[in-house]
């Protein structure tokens, strides 16, 4: 396969990187950040890929934070995660993603008590899970001390 003589790509590697960077960022923004479909792509296929990425992301989050599907129930976990992940690209690791997802559900629950964490008992378990992992230090041992600590956190 002979490279077309008109292309100076060999000498223009930084240009090639720039063009590729724009193209890849455009495609990935569509797949994970809710950007419009770039010209020339099949919108239906991108939707299949977008769903597949969210499904895989949910799989890994369920592995690093198995308590979340336990607290929410598998079906609610899946649908709530898909709603959270749509248009919210993953920027750090999966553990941070799991924390952000739980935080998002708690905020959603606080705002008019809606969503998957609206139920009081679910909300309490989720909040405890989130607090145990998001703070600068582990929660104190013992039920009373822990409860006092959480009260102080508000």
């Amino acid at each position: 396969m002979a490279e077309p003589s008109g292309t100076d790509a060999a000498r223009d590697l930084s240009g090639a990187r720039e063009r590729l960077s724009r193209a890849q960022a455009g495609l990935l923004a569509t797949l994970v950040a809710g950007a419009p479909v770039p010209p020339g792509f099949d919108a239906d296929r991108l939707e299949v890929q977008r769903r597949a990425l969210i499904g895989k992301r949910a799989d890994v989050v369920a592995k690093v934070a198995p308590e979340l599907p336990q607290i929410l129930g598998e079906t609610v976990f899946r649908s709530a995660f898909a709603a959270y992940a749509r248009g919210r690209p993953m920027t750090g690791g999966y553990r941070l993603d799991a924390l952000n997802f739980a935080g998002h559900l708690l905020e959603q629950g606080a705002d008019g008590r809606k969503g998957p964490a609206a139920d009081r008992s679910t909300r309490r378990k989720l909040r405890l899970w989130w607090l145990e992992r998001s703070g600068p230090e582990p929660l104190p041992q013992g039920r009373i001390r822990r409860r006092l600590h959480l009260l102080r956190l508000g």
Partner: protein
Amino acid sequence: MEGTGTRVRLGTGIGWRSEIADGIEALPGIDWVEVVAENICPGHLPDALQRLRERGTTVVPHGVSLGLGGAELPDPERLKALAERAEALQAPLVTEHIAFVRAGGPQTGTPRMEAGHLLPVPRTWDALHVLCENVRIAQEALPVPLAVENIAALVNWPDEELTEGQFLAELVERTGVRLLIDVANLHTNHVNRGEDPATALDELPLEALAYVHVAGGFERDGVWHDSHGHAVTQPVLDVLAQLCARTAPPGVLLERDENFPAVGELEGELGSIRAVLERHGSQRAVAHG
């Protein structure tokens, strides 16, 4: 950095995953295993993996996060981590993917984004030049030869300039990198992109073949999902047979990452793979005899 001249004979293997560690240890005839490089820590190898190594089983680290097909230079820290794993495992080679896994950042006007999965590189001259430079940088940083894998794609890039086979052939010619050919991914690209595996196999340089991946998936609404969580299907074994009719692969590896079945089922799949290898091995012997 090495060319394609020296071939390591690996045999038949399976992707080592902690969920099936006990089963793998009990399976007969496992010559080698592959581990996801990012899932292990060089100083603290899992006991089950360590026992396999002591038994003489070769372990090959398989990276998933370098994004060699991405627009950026490969991250030196990630390369160093991969090199450390190759050394800790005394691996004869390491493998990665022809894919991009992240994009964006200040220069593109979009935030930095992680795909969390392997996404296809456009088969253009631009992407080929970038990939070749990234592969050369990786080869310099790694203590053992590198092989790169063709991925499964759901998405087609518009305005591609090369076929998959041509793209891989140019990559090998320019870098001396070896190839890890995933026959399930060739099947995926057949269903999803209408690309005939036979054409790709005819075009790509099989002398650069390091080993072959075989995996299961499923078809839904005319789209093949390379799930690694379902049984290996006959069409995938047929692509393996097409490959084996052309060359004797130095190694073949069964991948299963999800929805783990009883180990007997994996043993059955390994048996089907071995049957394809033996059938074509004897046919080649007759043809060349």
